[in-house]
């Protein structure tokens, strides 16, 4: 401490001594400290206000989308709109709903078994040796790559391989397989993560009781991880229901029911929006509103089921 500073200190002490009559000076009685304290409080309040505004700005579009499409969807909904074909005089969404369900069932049937098995492998069987560890990390890396791949590229690949090279034409099977590839990384990842969450203690206890690795998976870690795995599956279904870009090049468009797998195009809900957005017909926009309404309510229901319903079931 330099001499000058010491001098200032002693002067200040003398001042405080005068003010507080012999007691030790309290820092919070110093007006400068008090001022800085108030300033810090004000800055803190401002930051809180700014974050609240940020939340409001972020939630506004969500609420507006929900409100608008529920309102317009409710105005547009009627029995013929849900049960008639798009080609009829009184056009409806029946074939699009059936098409979406068909696509999602194909992709779920393909992606869920593959993804769950792959996830179990990565979580339980990949520690065996050097090779299997390298293999597992390669698979993890590639599935990360896959999940970051823009969906339109998957559409292109599907178009080139399935539609043209395999000669399937625009078909639900091509679209379903592409959706399955889109879902696969999510299912693999959530399965692996939720199995890894099973506590080590339980694992050790089961091994100590003489369980083989297969028994361990079948009787303990899989059942315990099931709620988490189901959450991942449901969320990935919700993603595939809302997907559009890859399906445009693999599924095509049709005004009729088509319950076949290859050599026939079909319609689907997201395509209705894409197709009728600029439609000059009087019924076009209504079909698009109704379709958006159905898609949003589907996504909402699946998300709520996955995040709230299944979390309750989870025992770990």
């Amino acid at each position, binding site marked *: 401490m330099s001499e000058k500073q010491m001098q200032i200190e002693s002067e200040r002490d003398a001042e405080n001594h005068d003010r507080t009559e012999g007691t030790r000076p309290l820092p919070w009685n110093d007006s400068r400290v008090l001022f800085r304290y108030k300033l810090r409080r004000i800055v803190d309040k401002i930051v809180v206000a700014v974050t609240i505004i940020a939340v409001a700005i972020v939630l506004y579009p969500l609420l507006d989308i929900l409100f608008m499409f529920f309102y317009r969807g409710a105005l547009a909904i009627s029995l013929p709109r849900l049960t008639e074909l798009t080609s009829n005089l009184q056009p409806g969404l029946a074939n699009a709903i059936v098409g979406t369900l068909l696509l999602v069932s194909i992709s779920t049937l393909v992606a869920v078994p593959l993804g769950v098995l792959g996830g179990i492998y990565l979580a339980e069987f990949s520690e065996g040796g050097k090779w299997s560890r390298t293999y597992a990390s390669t698979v993890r890396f*590639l599935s990360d790559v896959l999940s*970051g791949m823009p969906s339109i590229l998957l559409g292109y690949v599907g178009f080139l391989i399935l539609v043209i090279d395999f000669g399937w034409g625009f078909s639900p099977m091509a679209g379903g397989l592409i959706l399955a590839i889109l879902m696969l990384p999510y299912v693999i990842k959530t399965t692996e993560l939720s199995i890894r969450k099973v506590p080590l203690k339980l694992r050790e206890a089961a091994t100590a009781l003489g369980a083989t690795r297969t028994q361990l998976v079948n009787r303990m870690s899989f059942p315990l991880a099931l709620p988490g795995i189901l959450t991942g599956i449901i969320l990935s279904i919700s993603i595939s229901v809302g997907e559009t*870009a890859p399906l445009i090049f693999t599924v095509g468009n049709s005004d009729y029911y088509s319950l076949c797998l290859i050599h026939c195009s079909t319609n689907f809900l997201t395509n209705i929006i894409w197709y009728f957005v600029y439609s000059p017909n009087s019924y076009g926009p209504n079909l698009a509103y109704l379709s958006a309404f159905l898609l*949003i309510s589907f996504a909402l229901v699946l998300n709520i089921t996955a995040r709230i319903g299944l979390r309750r079931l989870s025992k770990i």
Partner: protein
Amino acid sequence: MTLVVAAGSILFIISAVAVLLFTAYPSIVSNELGFFTSANWNPSLSGTVETVNGVHRLTGSSFGILVFIADTIASSGIAVLLAVPAGLGVAIFLTEIAPRRISAPISFMVEMLAGIPSVVYGFWGLLVLGPYLFYTVEPYLSQHLGFIPIFSGPISSPGLLSAGIILAIMIIPIVASISQDMMARTPKETREGAKALGLTRWEVTRKIVLPYAKTGIVGSIVLGLGRALGETMAVAMLAGSGVQILPKSLYYPFSTIASYMLLNLGAAVTDPSGMELSAIMELGLVLLAITVTVNIVARLLIKQGFASSSENAVRV
């Protein structure tokens, strides 16, 4: 069994890249480096076919993707600029400010934003956001900020600004939820120690939480960028698909790589020489390279963020 399953994903990625490369080969040979350095994309309509470097192409056609690359970077850049403050604001509110009673439902709603299909965002952008920008925001901006080059020029509703805002809304949940995870991993002891020393909430956030979660937050932003670069449907609906213009102002209609790919595959297939199809596949390869690189960087950052935070957690 599980080994085979995981091998499938490797096989798919390899075959996908192989098919894209195979189809893009004529364009790679014929367009050479001019593909990346020219801003002139002109699939010629002349009926005559000529041969360059041993592959057929239409006379007078030119394929330069600079304009798509510039537009893709511009729109994603706007999205990231808007999404980062909003997403971080939400994350800070959820981890540092709101009590659990409030933060749980808001966090759920922010995740719901990620569950809405992108075609619905595009629809909402056309119905609500676009007109609002066109009639209210853009005239105001060009009137009062017109002296800055990017705010001047003729206004139009499909354009960089509207697509950038929609992209921002779509990547906010990614930025917000991953940053929130990272910030929540700050050790309780450090946080409580800071609070006991009298730091306000903002000071705890700025001096303890943000430095602690820095790597992960940057990772979440890069991941959001990757999503914005590859987003297709909403951009295709809001971009106005202008080609041949490097973006000069916020209002210009534009085409990203993904939106151009979505809207022009049908036209590309009809090119008798096959060059346009080949060029559009090379465009896809470029998009693949960009998004995969960005995603790998993001995953590495997030992984590192997780690793360093658990390391610190042990030390503290």
